[in-house]
């Protein structure tokens, strides 16, 4: 009992210090304003009004949703067959294959972004290959500094995070359920769509959300490989806390993002609960 209480206290302190306090500070900031590079401590909602009135913010928000959606959908589409393959066909190499998919996680976040920059760049791997094989006469600059490069790089970052929940959801499905489906008359694809897939859906939703949220909030990837056309919502927040020196606006934009993501999590929580299906 004593140990349990101690853990509870530690967790409470942790949450208070690293979540409640900073978020509250942000919330407070978002209702202030800036004049002549001075933060004015007077309560107003002009920062929020700005988000809804200035089309720049809304359109960028929309574009960011679109890019994050593309990344999350592709990430799930790639991770699912991968997870299925490692699970069903992995055999004795299961662990190695599993770790292989997670290998990108062992490389630093920035290193991963920079390596994509060099792969997609004008003197990069892909261009060299295309020129070498004669497909292109001159290296192309259209691979880098656009939304395409952002999506590719984010995919590389998000796939391991999407793969893990999908993999564990598939792994938790008792093997004899697919067998039972076959026994009751379902061929391979019917058995998959009626049994395996619905049972792994919570993992898919969780993995999808992982990819969506990490991509939605990412600002390093767009600023390093996105160029001007690949800019995302995270970048304008970053600008407010940097060059523009408008912390209150940055805070308001962050709060909007936070609320949006919390709403998404709340909406998908029910189907994202893997355990609920298998436990009593």
């Amino acid at each position, binding site marked *: 009992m004593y140990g349990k209480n101690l853990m509870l206290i530690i967790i409470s302190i942790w949450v208070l210090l690293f979540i409640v306090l900073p978020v509250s500070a942000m919330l407070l900031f978002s209702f202030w304003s800036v004049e002549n590079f001075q933060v004015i401590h007077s309560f107003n909602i002009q920062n929020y009004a700005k988000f809804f009135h200035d089309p720049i913010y809304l359109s960028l928000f929309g574009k960011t949703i679109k890019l994050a959606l593309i990344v999350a959908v592709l990430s799930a589409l790639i991770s699912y067959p991968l997870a299925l393959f490692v699970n069903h066909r992995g055999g004795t190499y299961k662990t190695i294959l599993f770790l292989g998919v997670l290998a990108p996680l062992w490389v630093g976040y920035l290193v991963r972004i920079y390596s994509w920059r060099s792969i997609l760049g004008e003197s990069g791997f892909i261009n060299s290959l295309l020129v070498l094989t004669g497909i292109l006469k001159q290296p192309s600059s259209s691979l880098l500094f656009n939304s395409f490069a952002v999506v590719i790089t984010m995919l590389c970052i998000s796939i391991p995070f999407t793969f893990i929940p999908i993999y564990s959801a598939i792994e938790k499905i008792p093997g*004899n359920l697919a067998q039972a489906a*076959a*026994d*009751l008359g379902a061929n391979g694809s*019917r058995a998959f769509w009626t*049994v395996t897939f619905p*049972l792994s859906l919570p993992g898919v939703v969780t993995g999808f959300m992982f990819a969506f949220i990490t991509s939605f909030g990412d600002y390093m990837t767009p600023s390093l490989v996105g160029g001007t056309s690949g800019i995302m919502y995270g970048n304008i927040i970053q600008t407010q806390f940097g060059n523009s020196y408008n912390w209150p606006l940055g805070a308001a934009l962050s709060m909007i993002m936070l609320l949006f993501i919390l709403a998404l999590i709340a909406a998908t929580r029910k189907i994202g609960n893997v355990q609920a299906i298998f*436990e009593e």
Partner: protein
Amino acid sequence: MINQEQAVVELRQVSKRFGNYEAIKNLNLSIGKGEFFSIVGPSGCGKTTTLKMIAGFDHATEGSVYLSGTSANHIPPYKRNVNTVFQNYALFPHMTVYDNVAYPLKIRKVPKNEIRPRVIESLKMVSMDRFLDRSPNQLSGGQKQRVALARALISKPEILLLDEPLSALDFHLRQEMQRVLKHLQREVDITFVYITHDQGEALSLSDRIAVMENGVLHQVGSPEEIYETPRTKFVAGFIGKTNLIKGKMEGPSNFVSDAGFQAMTNDASGLLGEPHVYISVRPEKLRASKEDDRYVNRLSAVFVEETYYGSDKELTFREAGGTHILMKQQQDDGNMRFSAGESVDLFFRPEDAIIVKEWGS
């Protein structure tokens, strides 16, 4: 014996190897229409592998499996008219009881308006029609088993395979489910192939029993045949309790044990040439006194101990060759008390002495 045309399942010279391990050795088996057929044996005897080959989840390395007269070697499970009740039920956790039972009908594209009445009828058979909207997680083990049965029977398969279906249930539930199964089988007139390691279950439920050990089929027969006239030492010892003494035959019905004990037995002329055989006498066939003139066999033994089981008592003796001999004593036999080390003569009739071989056919 079942005649060839009626055989719903037939295994001809089937062998199954996993790498170097031979799970099934040259198995021949024929199961008739509407039979309650059990395959019994200890774990690892090959009974589950046999079941999987009938269901189509595993394939014979050699030989063929015939379903209703046609070779099923290349027919996938979903095209076989065979359904399975799995050991741990294998109910779909994301579906209600109703949807679980309706699954085979939906898969087979049965018209929508036929599904509901058939699901309810099927669940009524196992008295589960009040639980339509429950999730499998809200059911007890026995209830899950009933739903699994309803699901497996709803599409009226030709053969129902049951893989140790009652092993996860407690004693009372198991007995209740045994009655349900027996009753159901008569009602639906479907061939049941029942896998169990529980010989008592097999004896009470089956029309015929196959006894397997280490991938070898020892004997097939009715419960009475298997119990009363086992052919091998393994069958005699596995199905019910028995006393086995090693020796050989000196005449068609003259047994002599290695320690020199002689007995008149039932006819075993076929085993005259065997280098060694065993005499098998059930504990309930032994008497501590010569009840009548038919008890011509006398086995001298020393009393060791007694074990009390409620409805009866089991007395343990040791005969001259060192083998422990069990004798079952009914409560109304009168209370015979022996003290440890006391010499006692045990009697049995020649017809109760069965001669068995060491190995299967």
